[in-house]
């Protein structure tokens, strides 16, 4: 006898997310046999950008997501630099890496402590007020001294992630919504003052990662051994790579790579296609490479259940994110599961933070940070980078000096995709299969798997057909 469970809103994710699971008894236990993941919010970013000054894409696309604006700023800057034929000077590249690194840290901290951790601990008696109440109860939650320790870390982490943003602002001007990224480099320069302001903030954060965050993650992994066996998903991993260590980007802190069918492989972005059989878009929008992407909405389309498209690599379903990055770079090979996603994310936080200390030393005080290039009349550009939650690509087409087409494929479009034209379920949908559900009123086992991907729905859903405009009532 199958039971349906709908979780909407899925909270502690960026944006609006719905998860529907079908639960059946198998092997004496209630478990998920089918899952559907849907994004129910839609804005139309690419359409809004059409016809605008290409340089403005760096600012516009940051507003796709307030959690990872810096990754969009980086992808847009790289896409424009590709189109303009310009390379930032080393200081510009390094400053951008420092700001992006600071935001990776804040995003990973907020995910681990504030979005994921509440799935694993019982805060009763520790945080007995909203927003931590009401909360789900379950027999397996961490209680007692370890729960108190983790709640202490949770509160401390609120301050540490804020410090990461202060650190970013030293070079970005402000954050969220960084000011310094631009096609050609950075507007903010490296000075003796800025380096000496940045360094102690980084040291403070690194100390927190080393003494607290790594240990907290290990404690949760030890308390939930079964979660290292759950939520595997497709088992295919993909990373575009991020943090260029040289001018042409051939060397990166986290390199580009792919892992499929148990073997490593190269990445050819030309093999990416987006499918829409189960998304609210017309059939003509399906099967296309992002540089030729068409996105015509079809509200109420038969068989569709999400505003998210289904990107695939050589028609394969891939998982993106810290685990994919750390795996293809050989930094993490413990396993592929919901707990491994958490552990890889925490270990990546350390890897990035440690590298940043070295980048700070590489800055040459007073050196240029920006190389100017005129906007071409006509050009194509691709910007491939990583958001904290996975590979991010921007594709821009410039005509008559303006944006003629702008296409974004975000990590959550991959991870949170619906089924594709061949009926293959998305990565999170696959990861949910076999997850036990001990209590329908307290679906923590499902939430743990979903949260392990750190979904970001504002990023995943951002498209609408050019030229369509809904009629607005006079006033709202």
């Amino acid at each position, binding site marked *: 006898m199958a039971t349906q469970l*709908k*979780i*909407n*809103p*899925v*909270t*502690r*994710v960026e944006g*609006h997310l719905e998860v529907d699971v079908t639960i059946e008894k198998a092997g004496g236990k209630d478990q998920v046999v089918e899952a559907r993941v849907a994004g*129910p*919010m*839609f*804005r*139309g970013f690419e359409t*809004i950008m059409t016809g605008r000054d290409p*340089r403005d894409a760096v600012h*516009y696309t940051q*507003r796709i*997501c*307030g*959690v990872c*604006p810096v990754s969009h700023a980086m992808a847009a800057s790289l896409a424009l630099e590709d189109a303009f034929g310009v390379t930032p000077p080393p200081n510009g590249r390094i400053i951008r890496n420092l700001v992006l690194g600071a935001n990776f840290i804040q995003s990973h901290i*907020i995910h681990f402590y*504030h979005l994921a951790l509440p799935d694993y601990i019982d805060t009763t*008696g*520790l*945080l*007995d007020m*909203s*927003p931590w109440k*009401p*909360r789900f109860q379950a027999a397996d939650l961490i209680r007692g001294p370890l729960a108190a*320790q983790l*709640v*202490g870390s949770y509160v401390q982490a*609120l*301050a540490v992630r*804020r*410090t990461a943003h*202060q650190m970013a*602002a030293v070079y*970005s*001007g*402000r954050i969220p*919504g960084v*000011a310094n990224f*631009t096609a050609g*480099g950075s507007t903010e320069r490296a000075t003796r003052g800025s380096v000496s302001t940045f360094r102690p903030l980084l040291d403070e954060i690194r100390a927190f990662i080393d003494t607290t965050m790594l240990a907290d993650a290990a404690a949760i992994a030890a308390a939930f051994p079964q979660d290292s066996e759950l939520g595997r998903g497709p088992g295919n991993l993909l990373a575009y790579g991020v943090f260029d260590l040289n001018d042409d980007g051939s060397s990166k802190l986290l390199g580009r790579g792919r892992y499929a069918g148990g073997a490593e492989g190269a990445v050819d972005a030309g093999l990416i296609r987006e499918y829409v059989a189960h998304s*609210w878009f017309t059939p003509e929008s399906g099967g296309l490479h992002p540089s030729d992407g068409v996105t015509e909405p079809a509200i*109420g389309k038969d068989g569709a259940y999400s505003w998210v498209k289904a990107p695939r690599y050589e028609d394969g379903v891939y998982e993106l994110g810290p685990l994919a990055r750390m795996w293809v770079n050989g930094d993490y090979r413990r396993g592929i599961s919901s707990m491994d996603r958490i552990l890889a994310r925490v270990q990546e936080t350390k890897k990035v933070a440690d590298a940043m200390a070295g980048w700070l030393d590489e800055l040459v005080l007073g050196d240029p940070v*920006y190389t*100017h290039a005129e*906007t071409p009349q006509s050009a194509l550009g691709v910007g491939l980078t990583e958001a904290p939650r996975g590979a991010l690509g921007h594709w821009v087409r410039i005509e008559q000096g303006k944006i003629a087409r702008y296409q974004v494929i975000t990590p959550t479009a991959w991870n949170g995709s619906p089924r594709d034209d061949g009926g293959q379920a998305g990565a999170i949908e696959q990861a949910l299969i076999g997850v036990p559900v001990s209590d329908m009123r307290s*679906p923590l086992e499902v939430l743990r798997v979903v949260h392990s991907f750190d979904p970001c729905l*504002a990023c995943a859903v951002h498209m609408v*057909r050019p*030229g369509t405009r809904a*009629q*607005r009532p006079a*006033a709202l």
Partner: protein
Amino acid sequence: MRLSRRDFLGASSAIAAAFGMRIVWRDGAAYARERDDGGLPIVWLQGQSCSGCSVSLLNSIFYATIDDLLVNTLDLEFHSTLMPAAGPLAIAAAEKAYRRGGYVLVFEGAVPSEGEYCELWPGLPAEKGLLRYARRASLIMAVGSCASHGGLVAGAPNPTGAAGLAEEYFGTRVIKMPGCPAHPDWVVGTIAGILATGAMPALDAHGRPVEFYGKLVHDHCPNLQDYKDGIFAKSLGEPGCLFELGCKGPRAFADCPGRRWNSGAAGEPGYNWCIEAGSPCIGCAEPEYPDGMSPFFTFPPAGQAD
């Protein structure tokens, strides 16, 4: 408009405590003891948002740290990014607040004309949800440019028919705090001011608190003397006034020059801000943002200022 004293009585003492003392957290057990039930009730809903204003609020430290706010000051009854509850349990928390009424409704993000473009939860399109929760709110705060004026989501051609919270509908119960994102001090400072005085803050013609949006960026810009002396940056990354590169400071009202962004301690100005980072102001807190402020950059640089 005079606010009901009953609504804010408990909260006033709580925020006074938050301002008056710095709490050092040592272990989890300490938190539960610190707060009684006197927090200011908040229902925070997100429409077509990027969550950037929520993330910005997490950076609060100038008036009160975010942990002080969450633990001691606010009673954040619904915020989908932070609450452990999900699905029906989360909705029940919002509905409980609704039945009690008197909360501050914070709305983040724009509202589309078609319900299909954004629902808060099953069966509740953003517009319907906004109207429902506004009905029993003592005060409505439109946080960020999207909620205030439609913001980037309403940029031409406004494909989803997005809009902010119109004054003519919600009247004087709405305080607008635009900004892309809103500065955490604008939000926390406004709440603190209300709690201290029991009265609505003075608002400008666009519904923004004068205290934070009353000054022209340009008039208080550290580059003002460069502007007057005709010293203009000719390219990005160069010293000098950014006016010729497209700076919107002369048309932007906000206290960024003095307040700055991403403060590191209570009462201290932030580490940096857009213009000091060498980037032209994009006028993100103005009603005409983004269309009236685009393009953000001017290349080649404009001629000599008049």
